C-alpha cells in the first residue's frame, strides 16, 4: 500500500466526518483515519487552521468534530484539485 499524500489524508478525514452526517466524536475519527495519534492531531490542527473543521466540546460524549462549509467545498473540489496537479505535474 502506497503512502497517502497530505491532500489524500485531508480528503479521507473530511469524508469520514461528512459520512457521519458532518459530526463525529474524536475517538472514532482517530480510529477510522488510519493514522498514528501524533500525525492525526497534526492534521487536525492543520484542518482547524484552514477552517475545514470545528471542534466542539460536548459535556456528555467528549469532543466532537464537525465539518464546515469550506471542508465540504474541499471534498467537492478534491477530484478537480488532483486532476489539476496531475495535468500540470505540480
Amino acid at each position, binding site marked *: 500500500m502506497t503512502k497517502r499524500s497530505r*491532500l489524500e489524508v485531508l480528503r479521507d478525514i473530511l469524508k469520514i466526518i461528512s459520512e457521519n452526517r458532518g459530526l463525529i466524536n474524536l475517538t472514532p475519527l482517530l480510529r477510522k483515519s488510519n493514522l498514528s495519534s501524533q500525525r492525526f492531531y497534526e492534521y487536525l490542527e492543520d484542518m482547524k487552521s*484552514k477552517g475545514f473543521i470545528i471542534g466542539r466540546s460536548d459535556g456528555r460524549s467528549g469532543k466532537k468534530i464537525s465539518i464546515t462549509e*469550506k471542508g465540504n*467545498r*474541499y471534498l467537492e*473540489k478534491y477530484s*478537480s*484539485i488532483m*486532476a*489539476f*496537479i496531475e*495535468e*500540470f*505535474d*505540480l
Partner: protein
Amino acid sequence: MQMQQLAMQGAGMEVVYAFVIIICSLMVYISTRELYRLTSHKGIRYFRMAFLFFAIAYFVRSIIKFIIINFNLRAVMDFHIRSIGPITLFFFMYFSSMAIFYLLYSVKWRDFKDKMIYLFHGISVVIAGVILLIPSNTVYLIINILLLAIFAFVILTSRKQEQSRKKKNSLHVVYILLSVFWILNILDILIPNIVKTYQTLIYLASLFIFLLILYKVLRKTGAD
C-alpha cells in the same frame, strides 16, 4: 507619414498581443486561487506565481515596446526616456527570469529546498543587472540561451523520471515551447532586429501557447 502609419500599426499589434497574454496569465492566476486557498499546495502556489510574473513581465515589455516605437518615430532620446528605459528593462528582465524560474519551481519543488526560491530571486536580479550594465548582443544571447538550456534540462530530466514511472504528460512539451517563445520575446526586446522577420509568427505561437494553457487550466479547475 507612411513611417508613422507603419509604426502605429506596429503599436496596435503590440497592444493587442500584450493585452491577450496579460489577460490569459491573469485568468490562470485568478482561476487557480480557490485551488490554492483550499490546499496551500506549493506546486500550485509557484505555478500561479509564474503566471502572475508573466503578466507583469508582459506589461513591462509593452511599456518598453512603446518607448522603442516612440523613440524610432521621434529619433530623439530625451532625458525621461533615457531614465525610464533602463529601469523598465531591469524590471522586465527580473520579472521574465522569475516567471521562468517559478514555472520550473512549480514542477520541481519537491526536489528543491524552500529557500532555493530566494536564490532564484538573486539570480534574476543579477541577470537583470548584467543586461543593464553590459550592453552587448553576445551577452544577451548567452544569458538567454543559458536560461533556456537550464530550464529545458530540468524539465527534460523531470520528464525522464516521470516516463520511468510510466506516466504520460504532454505538458512538458508545452512548457518547453512556452520558454522557447518567451526567450524569443525577450530577445525581441533586447536585440530588436534579431527576430523581426518572424515576429508575427512568434507572436501567434506565443498566443497559442498561453491560450492552450489557459484552456487546460479552465477545464481542470471547472471554471466556476
